[in-house]
């Protein structure tokens, strides 16, 4: 048993416990401890990914209980890649947050580490009920982070977010309970084996439970019409928190990928490809809603929040196209969009500090300290987000469109993605020109947020550029991930010791 599988969980958990014990006055020590834990987390995630990159599936049996009886953690290519993305994002966002954002509440770092713990756990677990528990861990940490700093509108957005997620959790429990009642297991690999020999009498109930699970995951992934909670919550919260939340919708996407390729995959017989007919049209609708929102955004943060909706829709469209090509394109796009969205949120955080009263709203404000640098960075991020060449968004969209060639809904896919790109360009250009071209010279520049605040978004963009420069190897790897997802025999073999029922 390889212990690397559980280390990505232990590091943030220990850090969170230690951080909660430190006296509130020791800000410096907390920041160091939190950043150190995030750095260790990144190293561990790289190590874990290098262990599973060859195609091996690592299984960690908690308490050494044999598979269907105890909880297992499973690291395959997809899980390890998601953990690495989380760790990278966590570290860079933390570098932004330690420059002031964390001082407005005592438990910022504790919640941040718990959030990383919940995210890594959700990616690594191989048990459906354990997935629920990790969802709750990451949600309760996110409730705290979302409300960090306070304020009336933030509280209102937070209340909506909490209530809708509590309803989601209830639905999750109903679905899990039904699956257990019929199939008698909660281990995902065991469920996959048992579903093949499901009696036809129970088909309807299991189908209902599977679609209920889809509703829950679609809620997390912000698939239309369940996306309405997202823009308000993301736009109202602290930008560093919103940047970390760039990975939160991807948890829903990950859960959809995992559950509907493993449990309801090819071997599930009549239950195979259960959500495919829903994913594509709903994904396209999500893109359309999001793109209209981008045009109507009143601040850079709001535009970024609607771009999260667009990217969620694009991701789910690519998964809906399906096949190795579709999944691989979706995974490539996932990496790009997480990095670029987080960078845009962090930049809106910089504007919030640099423009005083006006904040990141699309209004004429005081002149910026380093207008060319900030505007240049915004333009880079905007190009990546809108999907223009030569940055990562363009490649992501090209891969998705390539995967869609020959699909029955091909014209719709092309039209929606391209029109949404155009609307995103218009929205971003409008935002950028109002914020950066028009400066009120009469208003004195009193605010100097510091050059170091620009580093984290710039580094996120550098990672995004890295995804373009190494597009070949990255795409090969996402293809390997997709291959492993479509043929889950290795996963079943590793967890259950057999790949057939």
């Amino acid at each position, binding site marked *: 048993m390889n212990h690397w599988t559980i280390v990505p969980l232990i590091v943030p958990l220990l850090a969170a416990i230690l951080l909660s014990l430190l006296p509130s006055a020791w800000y410096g020590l907390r920041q160091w401890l939190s950043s150190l834990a995030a750095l260790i987390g990144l190293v561990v995630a790289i190590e874990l990914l290098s262990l599973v990159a060859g195609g091996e599936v690592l299984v960690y049996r908690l308490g050494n209980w044999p598979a269907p009886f105890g909880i297992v953690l499973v690291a395959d290519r997809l899980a390890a890649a998601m953990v690495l993305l989380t760790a990278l994002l966590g570290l860079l966002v933390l570098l932004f947050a330690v420059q002031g954002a964390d001082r407005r509440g005592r438990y910022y770092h504790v919640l941040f580490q718990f959030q990383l713990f919940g995210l890594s756990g959700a990616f690594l677990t191989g048990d459906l*009920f354990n997935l629920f*528990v990790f969802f*709750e861990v990451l949600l*309760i940490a996110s*409730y705290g982070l979302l*409300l960090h700093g*306070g*304020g*009336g509108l933030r*509280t*209102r957005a*937070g*209340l*909506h977010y*909490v*209530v809708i997620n*509590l*309803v989601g*959790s*209830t639905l999750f*429990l*109903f679905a*899990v*309970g*039904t699956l*257990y*009642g019929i199939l008698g297991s*909660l281990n995902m690999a065991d469920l996959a084996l048992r579903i093949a020999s499901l009696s036809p009498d129970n088909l309807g109930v299991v189908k209902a439970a599977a679609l209920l699970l889809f509703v829950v995951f679609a809620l997390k992934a912000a698939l239309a019409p369940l996306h309405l909670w997202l823009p308000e919550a993301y736009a109202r919260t602290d930008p560093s928190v919103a940047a970390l939340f760039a990975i939160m919708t991807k948890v829903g996407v990950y859960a959809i990928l995992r559950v509907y390729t493993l449990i309801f995959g090819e071997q599930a017989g009549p239950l195979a490809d259960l959500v495919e007919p829903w994913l594509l049209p709903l994904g396209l609708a999500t893109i359309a809603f999001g793109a209209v929102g981008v045009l109507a955004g009143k601040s850079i943060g709001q535009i970024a929040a609607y771009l999260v909706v667009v990217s969620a829709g694009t991701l789910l469209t690519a998964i809906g196209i399906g096949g190795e090509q579709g999944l691989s394109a979706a995974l490539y796009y996932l990496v790009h969009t997480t990095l670029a969205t987080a960078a845009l949120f962090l930049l809106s955080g910089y504007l919030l500090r640099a423009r005083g009263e006006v904040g990141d709203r699309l209004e004429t404000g005081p002149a910026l300290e380093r207008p060319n640098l900030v505007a240049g960075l915004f333009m880079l991020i905007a190009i990546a987000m809108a999907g223009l060449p030569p940055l990562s968004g363009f490649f992501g969209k090209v891969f998705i469109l390539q995967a869609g060639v020959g699909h029955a809904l091909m014209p719709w896919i092309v039209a929606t993605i391209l029109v949404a790109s155009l609307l995103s360009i218009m929205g971003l250009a409008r935002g950028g020109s109002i914020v950066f071209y028009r400066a009120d010279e009469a208003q004195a520049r009193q605010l100097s947020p510091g050059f170091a605040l620009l580093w984290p978004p710039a580094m996120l963009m550098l990672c995004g550029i890295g995804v373009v420069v190494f597009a070949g190897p990255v795409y090969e790897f996402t293809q390997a991930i997709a291959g492993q997802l479509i043929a889950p025999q290795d996963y079943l073999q590793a967890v259950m010791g057999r790949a057939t029922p």
Partner: protein
Amino acid sequence: MEALISFSIGLLTACGVYLALRGRTYPVVLGLTLMSYGVNLFLFAMGRLLPGAAPIWREGQGSYADPLPQALVLTAIVISFGMTAFVVMLSLRARAELGNDHVDGTGEGQ
């Protein structure tokens, strides 16, 4: 017994959904609580209803109750308890900061 349990779960959930759709935070919190009661009972019932059966199997014992749903429901109760406490505090804070207890903070219908 099955009919009674299913009726109770259905009633709890229906009342929960109704209350969660109300406009004030207090009924919404109550609704969420009722829904979590419903789902807890549901999880418990998924181990099948067996009166007078022990959850631990012994040699020579005919039937036993499935202990796993009991463990699941315990986890779910703890989580929903914590979440209820959190959402109560949050709605109190919203009441204080927005000046009314409407979920949209607009004070409509007052």
